[in-house]
């Protein structure tokens, strides 16, 4: 069925009103030869032929399906139980949009409520919104919260240089024109020094301090002292986290964080060449009114039955206009559901098991690599499932060699931190077998001896 809302009579009436004889007259300013240009297209294909051609293009991609991968740097390959996709593809759920009408959306609203509950459990925080686009935008919304909390009176945001480079870039894009100064991550030789370095920047004008946990280089720092220091001058602290790590680590909530955000991709969302992903955002109750995004709450209906609704919506921009914290009030519904289903399927025990596997395998890999002549693990700081390796040769050369053996090597740190040359960031998850790790070690050895 075609959906054309206007009848020919109505169209004629409109044309007459504006004084035009026929529809074509509206386009007379566009030269005739540009109206329907002859597109140089190949002959039409049947569905079968088109599918074969597209499959051919797709095969040109090297993927983690066919290769061994140690690439992470913010996106991680984990096993996704097949039930996740089956539940996502159910017609009742298959929309990315947040529902407004509780009368017809109890299932979706409940799934978002469960997602929010799971996120607060993982992070050790009190409230979670219904999600954001990705980890980077969630970090940016943390700045918006702090900005709104101090009503624009505090103008300094301290960003640790070991926050993901893309998150920092997004932060700068989001905060353009807000009169904020983002400091702390300027290029310098000791850019990989820990949180002590940024402590000295905290002052009365500091609205927010942003750190990452584990940080971009894979390291684990306890930010308890940093949080206390920020609070002394009344500022807030945001910790961007890898959610998988929180299954076995002290939560940022326990450290005294005010805002905990992160990339939810590791929770049941495939790598998909970089997106779509999921941003999660959690904070303390006292900041709930300054939090961006949708929020689902539990209530009772007129028959006293448990039910769910979008709540505290007056803080959002469609109602609060220019005084709202953010102009984002949509969420990443389908992917939030994916992570809720993933976590529910794994359960507390399974989730912890995934984290332990990652931790143990990564530590085995680090130990083996550290033994190879010319290679060393760059830090003795504790790490989770990713670590920096100081290499004897440029990372790009090593990676090229690894590719020849069907291995995607680690991330080249020098791309974002020019002073940190020849460093490779290696991620190991439960998906990497011992054989794969041993193969990586063997090829790395070879590279050094060539």
């Amino acid at each position: 069925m075609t959906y054309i809302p206007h009848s020919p009579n109505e169209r004629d009436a409109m044309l007459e009103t504006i004084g035009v004889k026929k529809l074509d007259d509206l386009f007379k300013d566009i030269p005739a030869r540009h109206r329907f240009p002859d597109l140089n297209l190949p002959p039409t294909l049947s569905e079968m032929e088109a599918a074969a051609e597209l499959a051919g293009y797709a095969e040109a991609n090297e993927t983690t399906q066919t290769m061994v991968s140690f690439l992470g740097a913010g996106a991680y390959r984990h096993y996704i139980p097949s039930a996740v996709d089956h539940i996502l593809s159910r017609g009742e759920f298959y929309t990315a949009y947040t529902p407004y009408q509780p009368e017809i959306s109890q299932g979706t609203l409940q799934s978002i409520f469960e997602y929010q509950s799971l996120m607060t459990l993982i992070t050790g925080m009190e409230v979670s919104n219904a999600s954001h686009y990705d980890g980077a935008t969630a970090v940016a919304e943390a700045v918006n919260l702090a900005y709104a909390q101090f009503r624009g009176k505090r103008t300094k945001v301290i960003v640790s240089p070991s926050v993901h480079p893309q998150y920092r870039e997004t932060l700068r894009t989001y905060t353009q024109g807000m009169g904020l100064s983002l400091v702390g991550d300027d290029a310098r030789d000791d850019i990989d020094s820990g949180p002590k370095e940024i402590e000295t920047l905290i002052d009365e004008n500091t609205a927010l301090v942003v750190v990452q946990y584990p940080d971009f280089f894979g390291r684990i720092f306890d930010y308890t002292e940093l949080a206390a220091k920020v609070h002394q001058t009344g500022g807030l602290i945001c910790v961007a986290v890898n959610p998988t790590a929180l299954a076995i680590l002290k939560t940022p909530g326990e450290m005294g964080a005010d805002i905990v955000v992160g990339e939810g991709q590791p929770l049941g969302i495939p790598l998909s060449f970089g997106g779509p992903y999921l941003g999660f955002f959690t904070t303390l109750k006292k900041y709930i009114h300054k939090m961006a995004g949708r929020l689902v709450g539990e209530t009772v209906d007129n028959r006293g039955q448990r039910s769910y609704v979008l709540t505290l919506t007056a803080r959002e921009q469609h109602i609060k206009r220019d005084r709202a914290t953010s102009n984002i009030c949509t969420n990443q519904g389908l992917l939030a559901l994916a992570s809720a289903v993933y976590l529910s399927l794994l359960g507390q025990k399974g989730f912890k098991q995934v984290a332990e596997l990652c931790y143990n395998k990564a530590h085995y890999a680090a130990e083996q690599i550290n033994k190879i002549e010319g290679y060393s693990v760059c830090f003795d700081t504790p790490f989770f499932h990713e670590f920096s390796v100081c290499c004897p040769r440029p990372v790009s050369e090593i990676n090229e060699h690894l590719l020849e053996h069907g291995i995607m090597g680690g991330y080249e740190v020098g791309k974002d931190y020019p002073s940190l040359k020849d460093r490779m960031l290696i991620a190991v998850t439960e998906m990497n077998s011992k054989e794969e790790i041993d193969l990586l070690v063997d090829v790395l050895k070879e590279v050094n001896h060539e």
Partner: protein
Amino acid sequence: MNIPGNLKYTESDEWFDPSSGKMGLTDYAQEQLSDIVFAEILVSEGDSITKGQAMASVESVKAAAETYSAVDGNVVEINEELVDSPELLNSDPFGAGWMVKIEGGDSTGLMDASAYEKYCQERSQ
């Protein structure tokens, strides 16, 4: 609808008490907003405030509104209790629900109770 006779009123539905210097949101306004779930005072003690300047921001379950200062003056006290108990704006708008207390306010040009009552009735029709 309650409209105390000793207070002065603005067209944007704030009240001003010339004897105490307190200002707040009228009963008419709180009823229009319905259940208020959040209130934030936008000025601090010691600030000077001018007539028409936003002094507080409130959110109800369905709406958000700003309240504006009824007069010029200096802020001597703000009602901290509203942060934790915004419902005071609904339950006691002219008492415990006061927002800001100022010094030096001049009520010239504001409506008295009977003018404000008429103004509310006009809008309800």
